[in-house]
């Protein structure tokens, strides 16, 4: 019996060493070359993969079918950042990213409430999407190359252009990154923020200690307790979190932008139809604002508008909705039930909200922003 144990543990240690030895010794400057991938794929499935016709990737149209059969969209959302995705005391989800999920449900079912929300932490989100636990990830997720490829998902059009910032105590006297020399910075794990922080601090030559936490509440909690000198996340997130701190005036957001953070929804690889639906839902929101269609005047526009673009978008002319695999009044439903981009923005980040963020880049291209929808034809 003991012999068997020895053998098993030897095998395990050996396999660990082997697994680790695919790599050169740690600490050396790593040159990323075309290294041989340790293929674990069994022979049979691989053969099958090549046999499948490449023109129709497996999964095309499957997501929509599944969603329609289920009767609701399962949406991976944030539950801790007011403005983007937040659960109120009554257990309802609200926020900018949540409204996008509602728009998607409106486009598919003509009913914005047919959404099931899955609150996800930053590090759970991609696994949940890969595993098919959610249909769409709408959780202030930054679009990057690695996430777009290796993580098995595709980003659709960016819905919110953000940048990373730093928040410190107003009386700390810290105004620049250099002032943080030797300090501690709270950051949430599994975010691009964590990587940007490391990049920027290395570029500036500032020594710091990261204090890394699992979710937004823990990160902000540690900052509030004084565990760190500063806390970093997307500027919009800082604004949103500051609004719910006991004394918002005691904290300042530094005038430092550390990165580009284009935030948007993400879908799984392999179903281009679903990608198109998610993509054009964003464009419908932006287009509606551009053409001045709001939830209040959408019925009037549908009945009386003479603008062909508006008529096509609202399904009076042509069959744009059918091309997406939806009904022809998909965009009408979105605008009627959820509103256009501007309405959603005002509701979540407008001047009257505690999470006020000036529109800045997130404005139509005609208004000095960079929001731009392709033609509806």
């Amino acid at each position, binding site marked *: 019996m003991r012999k068997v144990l020895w053998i098993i543990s030897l095998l395990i240690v050996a396999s660990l060493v082997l697994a680790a030895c695919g790599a050169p010794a740690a600490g050396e400057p790593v040159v990323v070359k075309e290294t041989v991938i340790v293929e674990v794929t069994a022979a049979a499935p691989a053969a099958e993969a090549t046999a499948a016709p490449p023109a129709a990737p497996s999964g095309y149209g499957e997501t929509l079918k599944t969603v329609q059969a289920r009767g609701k969209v399962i949406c991976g959302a944030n539950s801790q950042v007011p403005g983007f995705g937040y659960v109120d005391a009554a257990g309802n989800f609200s926020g900018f990213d949540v409204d996008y999920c509602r728009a998607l449900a409106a486009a598919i079912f003509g009913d914005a409430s047919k959404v099931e929300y899955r609150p996800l932490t930053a590090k759970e989100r991609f696994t949940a999407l890969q595993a098919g636990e959610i249909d769409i990830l709408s959780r202030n997720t930054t679009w990057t190359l690695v996430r777009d490829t290796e993580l098995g998902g595709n980003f659709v059009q960016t819905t919110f252009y953000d940048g990373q910032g730093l928040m410190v105590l107003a009386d700390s006297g810290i105004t620049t990154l250099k002032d943080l*020399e030797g300090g501690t910075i709270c950051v949430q794990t599994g975010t691009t923020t964590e990587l940007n922080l490391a990049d920027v601090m290395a570029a500036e030559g500032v020594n710091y200690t990261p204090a890394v936490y699992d979710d937004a509440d823990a990160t902000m909690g540690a900052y509030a307790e004084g565990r760190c000198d500063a806390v970093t996340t997307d500027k919009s997130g800082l604004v949103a979190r500051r609004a719910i701190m006991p004394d918002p005036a005691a904290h300042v957001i530094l005038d430092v932008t550390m990165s580009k953070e284009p935030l948007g929804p993400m879908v799984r690889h392999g179903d281009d139809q679903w990608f198109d639906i998610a993509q054009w839902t964003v464009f419908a929101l932006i287009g509606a604002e551009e053409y001045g269609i709001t939830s209040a005047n959408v019925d009037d526009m549908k009945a009386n508008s003479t603008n062909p673009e508006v008529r096509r978008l609202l399904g009076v002319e042509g069959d744009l909705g059918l091309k997406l695999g939806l009904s022809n009044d998909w965009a009408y439903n979105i605008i009627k039930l959820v509103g256009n981009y501007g309405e959603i923005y005002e509701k979540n980040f407008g001047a009257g909200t505690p999470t006020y963020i000036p529109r800045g880049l997130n404005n139509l291209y005609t208004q000095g922003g960079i929001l731009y929808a392709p033609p509806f034809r």
Partner: protein
Amino acid sequence: MTHSTAQNSGIPFWRDERILRILGQIAFMFALGILGYFIYANMMDGLRRQGMTLGFSFFTGIAGFDIGESLIEYSRESSYLRAFQVGLLNTALVSVVGIFLATILGVILGVARLSTNFLINRLAALYLEIIRNLALLVFLIFWYAAVFLKLPKVKEAIVWPGNILLTNRGLGIPWGIPTASFWTYAWVLAFGFFLAIGVALLLVQQGRRTGRSPLVTLWASLTFLAVAVIGWLVLPEPPLRLDLPYVKGLNLAGGKILSPEFMALTSGLVLYTAAFIGEVVRAGIMSVPKGQVEAARALGLSGFQSLRLVVFPQALRVIVPPLISQYLNLTKNSSLAVAIGYPDLFYVSSTIINQSGRAVEMISLVMLTYLSLSLLTSLFMNWYNQKIKLVER
């Protein structure tokens, strides 16, 4: 052979119980194999549909994130592999420190629980009952959020005698920095150690000859101490330079800084596991027949002597096997560090999963690592258990 016997006795093989048993086992293994293949094929299918492959080549890529505390050199330019090693070492550190302290505290608790002194006995019982019935995660968060983060800010640090600084950025304790002569001194200590063993052997031999028991432990440790002190004084510069912690800018500097996360995790694990070890020790001691203690007292041994010379060696045989599982528990429970932000193996691995998207590979690797850590611990403890087992003749 079996078959022919079955034929000889006239029973057809499908009714021969010996053959049926073997066939049943084969069928079971076959079903298990099919289930395993099904799960594997399903996973591969899912990965293929997303255009992902399995493999560890990503391990050499640049990690890109920073880690708060590390026993080895690490920066954002290090590889994922390096980050993984940092996590592994942090887990090992917490486990080793935790097991060491929990054992000491556990033995004290177990003995106190059996004390005839009413107050000691009741206090130990109270402690054991409260701690054993708490959820470990809650306990850890209590230590982190309610104790170590509530310490004063750096500028208002509490200073304890011996220059120990308490702040919510960590505990600063004085620490020795090795100087050039450190390794020479290590050799001196090794020499002292062997000299002490030599002295001990000599004394034991002399004791056998004269029939009088000499003070072996005392003289051996005195020898070692003498060599250590002389070595320290004789060397041109002292092997360790004392480094005191102090407040520098926004943080502590100098000495050794123990982060609040490390402190919370270690204290939580030690205090929690010690309660279980205490019960194990109590059970072990109670398994020694009362007659043994009475006999020891009748021979004139003091309370402590009878505990050390008679009770404990016998109790150890009962204590060690459950003690092994407590050690394993402590090691595995250290993965709860994820809740309080201590960068242990599991924590760093989940960051790697998130930044690289390699969930299947990393989770398998983490499971294998915990498995090997546990098996290594249990192999060592089993060896120890064999060694102290009652030799039966």
